[in-house]
């Protein structure tokens, strides 16, 4: 393929990325752009050209040693929820935009510390970016068949132009707002897209090598196992190598939190905390998929090409060797994607640090105070833009000068070890409130010095002079000072060795100096806020302890310079409203100071924010004891408020319950009233009949004999009704108040039914109604026979009442089923209107569809029956028959 075609492909691909980023910025509110999948995929910015090409190189020469770099993040994944959530929470609250800001804020807005972290990151990452550029350049050359052509000056080196396009991309989408804590959704989405591209193309080449060039994994394995070094390639080689593994895993574990690009994606660009829940499984899965074919591509390359010098590019060389240019181009694009995402996100993160923690706090603050707000915003953006270009050009320069000595793997690990120097201040600082800024600075510098001596210096000497003497014999030939074997520890690989010693020194100094020198009150204040982030989230702006004199107008003046008048006023109004402070207030309190610092942090970094605000306020020293006391007090207030709130909620609940109970009582009372009314009404009816008849019999001497007889018989009937009613009411009351105890005994239901029928036979035969009970089986169940008899009598006499004279048939049956005894009473009478069905078991409910003559019931029969059955823990039911009549039935549990 010619240079130009390849370059053309690259331009097309970059335009596509521009398009995607542009589209995402435009749709920045859409659910799709803010999805947790995008977040998890963007985390895969971790996989750079090192992963894409470098792992294969390692796998080809040293076997499975490429793995621990991916095991660290996988092991760390469950911890994210714990650690990263806390970091994200703190960062959101303080509008933190980089790891330098995070660390400097934790140690009290320390300006020098922020700058130091920035420098460490630059030192670690610029060579790493250079490495990515080199990967692009080398793969470009491999793919371009035009091997005779070698760029003679940087002006015709395509890598330079690619680097510049990347800088433009990062500038365009990274500096749209002067506030760096604003999310860069365009970049995030394009990174997620690149993650997908690099994974798919890498899997393609994996499948191609394993299943097209070879006959599957087993084929490669068998062929490989004939080589003498096979054993070494497939195992962790003994105890010493085990240490190397452990340190590398630990190293990558730290890197996943501390690498500026990872911090940028996982913390600054995080939209919602809960996205972590997706990332926790998707990201490890991604890493796993990425590593499946590494070993097979490497071995396939060893078998088919066999040139370990070129092992890193087996993925490209293998398809080229088989004249598959298309696949090679895809692999190239995958690798290119890995490079772009790494370079863009890293430069974005580094430029933020460079501007907010180095350039602005050390040079531009005075000028900012004099400038017009619009110009300030432009200034800040320009500083960041220049930073992005400088970083990329620096990286390019590094690549041009060191290119022949760079190996993807070694430079990558070197970057990790350098960045790991931030680990003690970052991780321990999150949980130990004594960690102080001075100790952090000493620890980082000392740790870096160790890394410099054990890793960077030997590497540089080797690169510049080509001599191995320094590594072989040590400083001035002193053997305990051999850079790769300090104090005789010679079994670790150089990066693991450097990591071990630098971490040891760093942690030791950090711990020791933190204990020796207490930090000042401000450091301690932030330490408390970081460590107990959950509590201080509640405290919000009140968590900063501050004493002194400050005027709102002057603070407003400073804010105006950076946010513009409109945004400042809006923010302050919100603040005043939130804390119920009059907008005319003249003196600022600690809450306003804290709030203002946060407002500025996104634009100019936390250290500069603090410096600017303190330039217009008169701050008084507060003793450490006082800080802790005030914090404790406000925490207590919050806790007390919370307790009060809980108590009041509890009270409200209780009140609700009370009024509910009251309501229920009233309801019961009403029911009782209604019951009594109905009882009175029911009692009065027969009495009325008796009284009127008696009066007539007494007064009317001329009354014919037969009418006299009628009235007398009516009186008898009414008296009977009255006494029945009274009995029923008493029964019902006793049952519903639980005063009537049941006499449980084992009885034969057949006999009980026979007894009940026996008592009703006479009435039935008067109406010419047949009662049939042909079931002869004995079923014994435990129940109160008198009560069940009463139920049966009720139900059967109801049936008699509603049956027509002459052809009435009542069938009583029973059966044993599923632990229940079921008794049914079926008649062929008038049935019950469906509308009445739900009410028939209510007391005093009498169906409206009654016979012409009012049935002489008390209105309590079914209600009593229901009570009795439920006392037996059974249930009673009724349903109309399909043809005519109704079936009543009840279940009794079979004890």
């Amino acid at each position, binding site marked *: 393929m010619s240079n130009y075609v390849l370059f053309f492909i690259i331009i097309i691909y970059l335009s596509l990325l521009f398009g995607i980023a542009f589209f995402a910025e435009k749709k920045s509110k859409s659910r799709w752009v803010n999805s947790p999948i995008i977040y998890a995929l963007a985390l895969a910015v971790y996989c750079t050209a090192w992963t894409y090409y470098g792992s294969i190189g390692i796998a080809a020469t040293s076997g499975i040693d490429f793995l621990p770099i991916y095991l660290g993040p996988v092991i760390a994944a469950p911890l994210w929820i714990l650690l990263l959530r806390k970091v994200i929470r703190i960062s959101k609250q303080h509008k933190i935009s980089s790891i330098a800001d995070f660390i400097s804020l934790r140690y009290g807005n320390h300006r020098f510390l922020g700058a130091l972290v920035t420098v460490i990151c630059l030192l670690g990452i610029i060579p790493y970016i250079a490495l990515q550029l080199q990967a692009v350049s080398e793969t470009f050359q491999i793919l371009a068949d035009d091997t005779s052509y070698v760029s003679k000056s940087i002006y015709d080196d395509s890598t330079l132009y690619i680097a510049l396009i990347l800088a433009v991309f990062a500038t365009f989408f990274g500096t749209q707002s002067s506030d760096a804590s604003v999310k860069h959704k365009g970049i995030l989405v394009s990174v997620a897209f690149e993650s997908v591209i690099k994974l798919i193309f890498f899997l393609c080449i994996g499948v191609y090598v394993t299943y097209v060039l070879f006959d599957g994994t087993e084929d490669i394995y068998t062929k490989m196992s004939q080589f003498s070094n096979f054993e070494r390639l497939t195992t962790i080689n003994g105890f010493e190598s085990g240490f190397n593994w452990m340190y590398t895993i630990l190293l990558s574990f730290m890197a996943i939190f501390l690498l500026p690009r990872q911090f940028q994606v996982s913390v600054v660009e995080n939209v919602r905390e809960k996205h972590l829940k997706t990332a926790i499984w998707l990201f490890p899965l991604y890493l796993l998929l990425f590593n499946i074919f590494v070993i097979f591509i490497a071995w396939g390359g060893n078998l088919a090409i066999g040139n370990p010098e070129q092992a890193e590019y087996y993925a490209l060389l293998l398809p080229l060797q088989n004249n598959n240019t298309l696949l090679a181009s895809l692999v190239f694009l995958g690798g290119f994607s890995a490079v772009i995402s790494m370079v863009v996100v890293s430069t974005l993160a580094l430029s933020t640090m460079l501007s907010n923690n180095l350039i602005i706090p050390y040079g531009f603050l005075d000028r900012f105070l004099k400038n017009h707000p619009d110009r300030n915003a432009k200034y800040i953006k320009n500083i960041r833009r220049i930073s992005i270009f400088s970083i990329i050009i620096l990286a390019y320069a590094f690549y041009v000068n060191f290119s022949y000595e760079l190996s993807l793997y070694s430079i990558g690990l070197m970057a990790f070890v350098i960045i790991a120097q931030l680990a003690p201040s970052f991780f321990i600082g999150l949980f130990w409130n004594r960690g102080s800024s001075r100790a952090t600075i000493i620890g980082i510098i000392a740790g870096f010095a160790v890394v410099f001596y054990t890793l960077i210096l030997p590497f540089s000497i080797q690169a510049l002079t080509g001599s191995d003497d320094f590594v072989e014999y040590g400083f001035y030939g002193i053997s305990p000072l051999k850079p790769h074997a300090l104090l005789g520890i010679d079994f670790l690989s150089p990066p693991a060795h450097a990591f071990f010693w630098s971490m040891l020194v760093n942690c030791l100094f950090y711990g020791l100096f933190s204990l020796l020198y207490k930090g000042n009150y401000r450091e301690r204040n932030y330490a408390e806020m970081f460590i107990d982030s959950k509590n201080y989230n509640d405290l919000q702006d009140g968590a900063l302890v501050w004493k002194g004199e400050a005027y709102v107008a002057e603070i407003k003046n400073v804010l105006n310079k950076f946010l513009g008048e409109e945004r400042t006023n809006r923010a302050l109004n919100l603040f005043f409203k939130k804390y119920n402070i009059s907008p005319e207030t003249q003196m600022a309190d600690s809450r306003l100071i804290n709030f203002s610092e946060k407002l500025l942090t996104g634009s100019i970094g936390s250290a500069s924010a603090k410096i600017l605000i303190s330039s217009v306020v008169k701050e008084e020293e507060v003793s450490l004891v006082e800080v802790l006391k005030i914090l404790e007090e406000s925490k207590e207030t919050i806790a007390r408020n919370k307790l009060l709130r809980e108590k009041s909620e509890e009270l409200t609940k209780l009140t609700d319950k009370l009024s509910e109970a009251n309501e229920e009582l009233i309801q019961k009372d009403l029911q009782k009233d209604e019951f009594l009314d109905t009882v009175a009404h029911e009692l009065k009816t027969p*009495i*009325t009949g008796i009284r*009127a*008849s008696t009066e*007539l019999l007494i007064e*009317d001497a001329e009354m014919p004999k037969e009418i006299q007889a009628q009235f007398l018989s009516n009186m008898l*009937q009414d008296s009977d009704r009255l006494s029945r009613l009274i009995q029923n009411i008493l029964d019902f009351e006793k049952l519903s108040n639980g005063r009537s105890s049941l006499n449980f005994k084992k009885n034969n239901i057949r006999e009980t039914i026979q007894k009940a029928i026996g008592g009703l036979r006479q009435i039935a035969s008067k109406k010419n109604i047949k009662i049939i009970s042909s079931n002869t089986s004995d079923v014994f169940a435990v129940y109160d026979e008198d009560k069940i008899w009463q139920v049966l009598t009720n139900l059967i006499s109801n049936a008699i009442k509603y049956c027509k004279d002459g052809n009435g048939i009542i069938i009583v049956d029973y059966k044993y089923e599923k632990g229940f005894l079921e008794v049914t009473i079926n008649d062929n009478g008038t049935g019950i209107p469906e509308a009445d069905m739900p009410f028939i078991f209510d007391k005093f409910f009498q169906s409206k569809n009654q016979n012409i003559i009012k049935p002489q019931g008390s209105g309590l029969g079914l209600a009593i029956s229901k009570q009795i059955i439920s006392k037996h823990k059974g249930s009673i039911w009724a349903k109309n028959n399909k043809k005519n009549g109704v079936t009543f039935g009840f279940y009794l549990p079979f004890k």
Partner: protein
Amino acid sequence: MKKKIVIVDDEPNIVMTLEYTFKKNNFEVYIARDGSEALDILKSIIPDVIMLDVMMPKVDGYQTLKAIKENKALANTKVVFITAKNKASDIEKGLKLGADKYLTKPFSIKQIVSEINELIA
């Protein structure tokens, strides 16, 4: 001409005593066992008095009274509630609906007769 009375009640024993009494007092007596039967009867005759129980199946006394009040032909017909409901609120409700008298059960025959006669005199 004989006075006409419609007795609306679902208790046959009570109805029997009233029927006997008013027949003896020279009334033309019509019996209905609930509101809907009463309204049927009222389609063909215009009585002087209607005696109305309140608690009855199907159409109760209140509903019946409302229907009577809507019927212009019955404008001169007196309506007397005769019921066991004797709470002050019940009486008030009955009179508000437009009943001319409210008598409670149990009643004295003598008193009923004199109240009715007074009403239609």
